[in-house]
């Protein structure tokens, strides 16, 4: 009988190149699990010289004054309602963190912005982000120096809102374009073009009474639901400075 033996073997683990590829793959899996925080921090340092300047801050301050007037009116109304009902929770005056937008994706498949404040500055996942005009979105992930915000226009975004005139709660769902959909679970809701929409006092995700937008068009009732397109007051594609609300709901 002949004894057939293999003189030399060539297995994949004998090649150095394969090990390098394996290590690179493991590193990329780490990047994926950490939600790209390494890349976002690298981008933070690269984009630092190009951050928006002080002039923008002044423009924003003016817009914020206008926004505050609208907010005060809303709060007064809410207070009156609270006295009657004595059920709604208080809206707190939490701390705000000012942050610059260092990356924005307001078109295409992904609707997100990246801010230059991260977990180092006390930003937490789930915090609300507001810009001149009103609510922009919520913080979805943070790295040491940056935080990523899911915009209200993203299909991933779903927040509870209140139609101020008719006092009906609804759900604001991003549809991938600039006008998110408002879904009212009532066929008879008397919603009209021009109605003002703000964050719902019943929402567990957002602070109450943050201005969001205005009804732009109303759709036909479908399956006991009524839908409307909302024109957002805060424009994420032009805003360079935003504020992150630190308050806990």
């Amino acid at each position, binding site marked *: 009988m002949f004894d057939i033996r293999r003189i030399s073997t060539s297995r994949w683990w004998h090649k150095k190149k394969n090990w390098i590829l394996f290590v*690179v793959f493991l590193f990329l899996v780490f990047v994926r699990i950490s939600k790209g925080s390494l890349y*976002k921090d690298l981008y933070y340092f690269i984009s630092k010289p190009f951050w928006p300047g002080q002039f923008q801050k002044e423009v924003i301050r003016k817009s914020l004054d206008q926004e505050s007037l609208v907010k005060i009116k809303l709060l007064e109304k809410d207070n009156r309602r609270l006295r009657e009902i004595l059920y709604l929770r208080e809206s707190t005056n939490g701390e705000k963190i000012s942050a610059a937008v260092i990356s924005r994706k307001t*078109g295409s498949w992904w609707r997100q912005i990246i801010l230059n404040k991260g977990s180092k500055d006390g930003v937490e996942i789930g915090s609300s982000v507001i810009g001149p005009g009103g609510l922009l979105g919520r913080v979805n992930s943070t790295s040491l120096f940056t935080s990523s915000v899911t915009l209200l226009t*993203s299909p991933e975004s779903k927040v509870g809102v209140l139609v101020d005139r008719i006092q009906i709660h609804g759900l604001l769902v991003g549809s991938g374009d600039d006008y998110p959909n408002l879904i009212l679970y009532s066929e008879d809701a008397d919603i009209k073009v021009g109605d003002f929409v703000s964050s719902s006092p019943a929402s567990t995700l957002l602070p109450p009474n943050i201005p969001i937008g205005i009804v732009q068009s109303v759709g036909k009732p479908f399956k006991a639901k009524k839908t409307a397109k909302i024109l957002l007051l805060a424009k994420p594609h032009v805003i360079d400075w935003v504020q992150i609300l630190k308050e806990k709901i």
Partner: protein
Amino acid sequence: MNKFFMKNLSIICFIFIPIIFLWHPNWLGFLGIQPYWPLFWLLPWSMLHGSNNGLIFGLFLGIILDSLTLDSNFTQIPGLVLCGVWFGRFKTHSNILVGHFRYGLICSFGSFICGSLYFLQILFKHFPDSTFLIVMPSFQNIIAEVFLTGFFAPLICSQIFRLFRFSREKSLIKIFSKK
């Protein structure tokens, strides 16, 4: 330093793709939509190194880009892997002008594949209540992305291809001269 840079030019460019993806320059866009940047790197790389390398680096690119976007339900990996394998089967064209426009055509089609696969995932997820409201912006995304990718590809891909080939030839010459 210069030698190191020349030798690893393609890998250095690879590291910078996510940075450009995050940068998202508005002035280069159309309807708020950008060209699909990873294809500009993947096409020259796969053409030079073949389908297997295209597949591996398509996967790597997909993993990195998925980590930068917040939509955890959808992935760009299938489109990029498919493009990596497909691009690896192309050979360079002798006619420079035809070669240039071929880059545009290939990248446009690649972008269409990636966009369509992403859109199919969205449709699949929202299948029970997929509405016309989701479909329309998606079509707009795909068409604008295909147009922009095809428009910039002849300019960017041909330059990247030349750089990669130059750095590869240099490293090959060095290996042979050592032997």
